[in-house]
């Protein structure tokens, strides 16, 4: 099945039959499979990405920049960045704690906790948004009390923050858990035996080992916070200039038939996605070499 001819250093003239053989069956099937896979890849994955970038520059660079520098776009960028700053550290801290607990210890109810952590990933983003509307919306049990104290959660920033927290809760934990599980506890036990405190053990033994997995989780969490659409769209109320994140702005521009501007904002998010993929790649490579050492 594998072509051995390519690794042969003998002159090809010596082995005419062998060469003919590799061209017939040995290479045709792989080449065909690669071709089909690449066609699928180009059609389904590559084409959408290229489309975003081309459509964004449809009306030239000048228009591109002016749509990005418009007040609404700037405001949406600020809000999106603010959400990333407010959400990612919290979920990273939770992720480390949860992965430590579930990776280093065995106790009853452990697999139930894992399922709970997975849940936000499998729940529809719209359901995630709805859950918070039911909790804090005007019609909820808390609604009148919140209104009386002039606290706005739904259709305001706290709502967007809460749903973002919910939706991205599993990312860091899910990246760290398999690593901590496979590492076992030998090194930490040795550290403790040698007199290290709990913090020292974590800081000098465990953290360096989970560094790249942590970066991987954080970058995915960040991408989801900045790109979340469904959940945020339920709680945001789409108040222009106040509660619009970049993905919501894309939808608004699209609905107003400002297609090129919509694609310009979308291209910004596409670039974010590409940066995410690059960092993710590096993180995966690094953690693989680290585990081989």
């Amino acid at each position, binding site marked *: *099945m594998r072509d051995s001819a390519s690794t042969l250093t003998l002159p090809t003239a010596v082995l005419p039959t062998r060469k003919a053989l590799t061209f017939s069956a040995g290479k045709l*099937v*792989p080449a065909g*499979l*690669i071709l089909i*896979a*690449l066609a*699928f*890849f180009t*059609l*389904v*994955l590559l*084409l*959408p*990405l290229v*489309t975003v970038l081309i459509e964004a520059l449809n009306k030239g660079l000048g228009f591109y920049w002016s749509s990005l520098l418009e007040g609404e776009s700037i405001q949406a960028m600020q809000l999106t960045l603010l959400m990333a700053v407010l959400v990612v550290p919290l979920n990273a801290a*939770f992720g480390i*704690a*949860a992965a*430590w607990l579930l990776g*280093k*210890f065995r106790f009853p109810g452990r697999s139930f906790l894992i*399922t*709970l952590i997975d*849940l*936000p*990933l*499998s729940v*529809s983003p*719209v*359901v995630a948004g709805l*859950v918070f*509307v*039911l*909790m804090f919306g005007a*019609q909820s049990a808390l609604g009148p009390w919140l209104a009386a104290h002039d606290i706005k959660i739904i259709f305001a920033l706290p709502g967007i923050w809460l749903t973002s927290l*919910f939706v991205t*809760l599993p*990312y860091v934990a899910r*990246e760290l*858990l*398999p690593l901590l599980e496979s590492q076992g*506890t030998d090194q930490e*036990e040795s550290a*403790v*035996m040698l007199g290290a405190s709990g913090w020292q*053990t*974590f800081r000098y033994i465990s953290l360096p080992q989970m560094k790249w997995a942590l970066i991987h989780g954080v970058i*995915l969490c960040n991408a*989801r916070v900045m*790109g979340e*659409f*469904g959940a945020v769209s339920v709680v945001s109320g789409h108040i222009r200039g106040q509660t619009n994140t970049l*993905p919501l702005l*894309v*939808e608004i521009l699209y609905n107003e038939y400002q297609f090129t501007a919509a*694609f310009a904002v979308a291209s910004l998010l596409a670039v*974010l*996605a590409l940066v995410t993929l690059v960092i993710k*790649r590096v993180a995966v490579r690094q953690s693989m070499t680290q585990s081989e050492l």
Partner: protein
Amino acid sequence: MTSLARRQNIVPGFRVTLGVTLCYLALMVIIPLAGLVFKTSTLSWDQLWHTLTSARVLAAVRLSVGAALAAAAVNAVFGTLLAWVLTRYKFPGRSLVDAMVDLPVALPTAVAGLALTAIYSEHGVIGRITQEYWGWSIAFTPTGVFIALVFVGIPFLVRTVQPVLQDLEKAHEEAGATLGASSWQNFRFILLPQLAPAILTGAALAFGRAVGEYGSVIFIAGNVPMISEIAPLMIISKLEQYDYAGATAIALLLLGISIIVLMTVNHLQARLQHYRQPLV
């Protein structure tokens, strides 16, 4: 000695991390989801039944589930093929393709939806061709929904099957080949049985994601009532009419599907324990 070590885990941090994890999960996951269930308990059976069996909701749920199943099936074939090609062959651009497989995870759903609409609408690169030659429009029809869900599901298949393929012993296939199996027989009787749990897990994950998918679908779907409305969109439209009870009923149905899928995946993954991959 081992029994002593088992009994007393001296790794620090159990209580702190248990406390943090439980509090955070209670605040962020348990209480909010319990709120949803509580809200449902205030509805009568009649109300619930009435909402879920109304023609428009039924059509939306049928489309969401049907298109998600079809997309998962297509991804089971092409995702496995992609994983196979990426692990077994070397070709120019391989690592680029490998990195780009995760695009649907990293690309915001609204951006994906916008791009797919541009491609498959009647003015788009592909939409124009299908429209002109076959009179077949893709955007704003159930086919559009299906295509968006295929896009969304790819990484789940590839990333579940890939590690299993990497670890498969080539010796099995080689033994098959030396015993005279054709490449098809080799695939069908030696590879497929070993890959099946991974493919099923990936397909279940892709299905779970696709049923609840919203952002990448609503643009290309066009949201024509009874034809191309998806179930998550029905929640939004109920909310816009301040029909909280109706929205909750549909949400509960979707949550139920998610939980069933999650349990199925956990069950399947128990067989794949060794490959338990951080999947997103």
